[in-house]
């Protein structure tokens, strides 16, 4: 039986109480994308600027639970100033971590694109995730996975729209 400490790690509560990169960038020029969690009504607004292949700025708005808000905050801190290629890789790694137990938990499906489901799970380099690894415990609470992935799916959509893959 997973305990609450698996879910609500101190770093998560910290980002929930003091979210980083909060607000909205002026759009345009920034790319603005909205994400919704149809299960709980949470919504998130990601605004990002991509300059010269680098995510030069990002801000997060919207409202949601501690997991969705802290995940968004951690994400913004992790991707700001990094090349788009690395950010895409990070999104893949993060979503991989969020589906580690996907094969044994049907409800753990996070609504991602079908090609994710078909492919064999790749080994996840948790070390590469740094502080984001604090969200690892969320997979033990399958209903909350969508909370953690909401901002990441929204960011991925924003990248696709600003710079088609």
């Amino acid at each position, binding site marked *: *039986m997973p305990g609450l400490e698996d*879910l609500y790690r101190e770093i998560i509560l910290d980002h929930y109480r003091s979210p980083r990169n909060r607000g909205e960038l002026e759009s345009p020029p920034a790319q603005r994308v909205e994400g919704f969690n149809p299960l*709980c009504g*949470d919504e998130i607004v990601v605004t990002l600027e991509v300059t010269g292949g680098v995510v030069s700025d990002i801000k997060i708005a919207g409202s949601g*639970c501690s997991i969705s808000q802290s995940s968004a905050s951690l994400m913004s801190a992790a991707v700001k100033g990094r090349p788009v290629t690395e950010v895409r890789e990070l999104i893949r790694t993060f979503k991989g971590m969020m589906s580690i137990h996907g094969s044994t938990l049907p409800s753990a499906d996070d609504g991602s694109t079908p090609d994710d489901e078909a492919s064999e799970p790749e080994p996840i380099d948790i070390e590469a995730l740094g502080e984001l690894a604090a969200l690892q415990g969320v997979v033990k609470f399958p209903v*909350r996975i969508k909370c953690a992935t909401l901002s990441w799916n929204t960011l991925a959509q924003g990248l696709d729209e600003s710079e088609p893959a």
Partner: protein
Amino acid sequence: MAELNGTGAELDVATLRKDFPLLSLEVNGHPITYLDSAASSQRPVQVLDAMREYDETTHANVHRGVYGIAEEATRRFEAARINVGRFVGAPNPSREIVFAKNATECLNLVARTWGSTHLHAGDTVVLTEMEHHANIVPWQMLAAEQELNLRWIPIDDDGHLVLDDLEQLVDGAKLVGVTCMSNVLGTLNPMRHIADVAHAAGAIVVADGAQSVPHLPTDVTSLGVDVLAFSAHKMVGPTGIGVLWGRDELLSDLPPFLGGGEMILDVRKDGFTPNDIPWRFEAGTPPITEAIGLGAAVDYLRGIGMELIRAHEIALTTYAMAALHERFGDDIHIFGPKDAVERGGVLSFAFRDVHPHDISQILDQYGVCVRAGHHCAKPLMRRLGVNATARASFALYNDKSDVDTLIEALDATGAFFG
């Protein structure tokens, strides 16, 4: 809907709780405190046994076989229909009760049969801001196809419908869709008044009884509505079966819903002749075991007495609202009417600034089951200015100890998030 106060009799919750096996469960090391009956209620052994007994002794397909158990299965299936019909006061239960998958499918059935034959481009449908998506989206789907207008009866800050301008709102409308009891606010709506005004304007009334039928006495004639939909699984019955009551004359005029077996009298290469009501709307093998279970659920509720259940839930809701306010003061906001007599035992609340998901997650550690989310009522959530609420809802098997456990667990939630 009768209101009873001071009948003298009290519900013996400790005894009837023993009828519900799931309520003896332990969750995370705590006895379960089940406060999510508005989403789905638990079932007593009487219902579980009736379904098992039917499956073990009687099961065959209904309305087909000319052999003993098939005839007995048909007899018991149709007896369940009549039993459920009498439970809601249907004047002609053998014709007016239609079984479908759930209340949602029943409302879709009305939209697809009455709606598609009686509503035309430019017609108006009136809904309320507190409807469940089940009584919104079927009409929006139809509106998109047939260019209908939708109007909305607003709510006030206390969660009552604003009916001052009802005459104008329903003027020229063909249909009014309204819930008997809000699944978020608990508000009990004045169905008779709404129905009288709607009928005077020439509109029919489609009532969502999913929350009201399990918790208070229901008489479709007194409600004055034209159709009423409800679900077995919210009234101590099984999942997989919902009930539509409709006035005989109204149902008799309607085309079939889905096509297939059971709903036909004759099929030729050049067409088919639909069956009489209610079977016209029941294509394919129906949920037979579930109908038996629903019949047993109705027997169970009737045996206890709906008036006693209602009185118990008023007392419990009054206690819960007072106790929550006393302990948490301004840290808690309970949505909906302040007086328990005007509402059912459904308490949606905001607690400090803790998100409902987080509340629900911490409460689970204490074995307390509440619902967190938008409760399939997003227009209402927008009106309330929230994304989601936490919701504790009561049934006949809840008592003050459940409320006390909720309060202690909420206290711990507050401490956890600082």
